[in-house]
């Protein structure tokens, strides 16, 4: 059974009188333990796709399954719970809360599971260790470099042991060197911890880290590639 399965997804927006079709019949499957890259230029619909996969966006039509369970978009409560338990997000801009320490930022998804504070802190610390940021646990985001912030964000994405992490341009705000390091970390987590991950990028070099690559052009998956990982 696949972790994520989207079948014939359409998404269109109304911009004034004209209708813009962002996704035009996308079907995609993500298997357990897979590291998948979705490559696309800006405006190709890749951001909309990742938001749809992350249950932040409702498709205009098409079916979507998370761990075999069909998603019903009418129940906001159920969607929130699924996001909390099955999805881990990594964003281009990190989106760490500036007032919280690294430790508290990482623990955030667990707060919404109603865990005790001591337990949350303990788990968050364990995951900071996995991304090599344990010595920065009590620092605020503005005391950390971009690369460090993204590591903390990755720890936050995996702290709840989700089914899949969705990384939307995770290296987009970083220099090449740091970007490579972040990709190496995602790859390591995939290989050593068996974490399923989807990386959305416009950069083929970043996509090279992934076993499987899909390309999205104008809201359609156009090309499948099974080349070896570099």
């Amino acid at each position, binding site marked *: 059974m696949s972790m994520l399965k989207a079948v014939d997804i359409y998404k269109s927006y109304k911009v004034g009188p004209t209708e813009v079709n962002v996704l035009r019949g996308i079907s995609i499957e993500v298997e357990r333990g897979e590291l998948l890259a979705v490559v696309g230029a800006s405006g190709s619909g890749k951001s909309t796709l990742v938001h749809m996969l992350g249950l932040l966006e409702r498709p205009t039509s098409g079916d979507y399954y998370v761990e075999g369970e069909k998603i019903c978009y009418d129940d906001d409560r159920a969607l*929130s719970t699924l996001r909390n338990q099955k999805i881990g997000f990594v964003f281009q801009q990190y989106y760490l809360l500036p007032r919280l320490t690294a430790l508290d930022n990482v623990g955030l998804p667990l707060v919404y599971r109603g865990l005790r504070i001591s337990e949350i802190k303990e788990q968050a610390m364990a995951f900071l260790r996995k991304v090599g940021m344990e010595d920065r646990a009590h620092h605020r985001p503005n005391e950390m470099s971009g690369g460090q912030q993204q590591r903390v964000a990755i720890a936050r994405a995996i702290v709840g042991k989700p089914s899949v992490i969705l990384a939307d341009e995770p290296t987009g705000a970083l220099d090449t060197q740091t970007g490579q390091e972040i990709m190496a970390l995602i790859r390591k987590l995939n290989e050593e911890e068996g974490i399923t991950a989807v990386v959305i990028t416009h950069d083929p070099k970043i996509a090279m880290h992934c076993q499987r690559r899909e390309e999205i052009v104008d809201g359609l998956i156009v090309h499948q590639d099974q080349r070896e990982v570099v």
Partner: protein
Amino acid sequence: MANIEEALRSLTSAKQRTILALTGIIIGIGSVIGMVSIGAIVENEALKQFQDMGVDVAVVRREFSDKTAEMKLQDIFELKKHVRDILEVAPFLGSGGEYTLHGKKTYLEQTGVTESFFTLNMIRLREGRLITDLDAYRCFCVIGKAIGDFLRGIGITNLVGNQIILGDRIYTIVGVLDHVPQGGMRPCDINNAVLTHITTAGRFFQYRSIDSFMVRLGGQKTTTEIKTEVKDYFNKRSKGLSVTILTAEELIANMKKQMRLFTLLLGAIGSISLIVGGIGVMNMMLVSVAERRMEIGLRRALGALQRDIQTQFIIESVTLCLVGGVIGILLGVLVSLVFAKLSQWEFLISYGSIALGFGVATAVGIFFGYYPARAAAKLDPIKALRS
């Protein structure tokens, strides 16, 4: 718990804005507390004065509409014989003014009384003796505590036996009184009074007509019945003389009514400040929501329910109001303390008003925080994240 910690953190991160928004709440809660407490202090003070005099005291007054009919001393003394439920009568005759005692000027109230005046007014003696009815027509006096202190202040140590000159008469001091709380049914400020026998006063005062006297009521009859009997009695004794009778109970009832009105009025002023303060809080919360759209979007992406976001912001606005509430309560208590000190009244903390303060602060926080919190919860996560 984590929510409150989080709320405090976000409030301290925008200190200036927090303080500005809090000002309204502080003033609002402060005025409610201050006003309610002052009301309670006044009421307590008023009731205390009646409590130490008893509620069976009444004052009979001549109606001023009728200038010719006089209330004669003899008729007052004989009232007891004709109306059985009047246990005691205490007529008095007073005139206040500036006098020179041993070369120093002071204000005093020269009052003519009878023996019963002391018991009816619950006056205690400090040294010497009281004026008795055997002192009729004699120039003996007892002095109030403040007058005693005044005389000591100008170097006269042996008060009892000393003589003072009032007008063109020399009076011998036979006693000094204890402090007597002012107000209630007491006809004058006894602490500042020089008391002689009423017959002595009747001879020497320029104004000799008795306008009112005190009585103690008792027996089985109702106050209304006694009132009628007293009125009939005076009407019979002196043609056309009409009197009004005010009992302590009636006075207390009137005062309580007045206090309630006072408290309500003050409460209303406080409420208006609170509404203004609440709007300030709402404004601050709306700004806070607008500034933290990314945070709201992120929290939703991480799995926060709409309810979680709403709760977070409501807790924040309630925390804000409670912080303002605590400061406001302190301010209100301080204001009422200053008020009590200035009026030399007993200070008391009205715990009910403090509870009210916390209650009101919470209510303002929930009420004015609801709309911004709801707006935050309803944000589309994606749009919020992108902003």
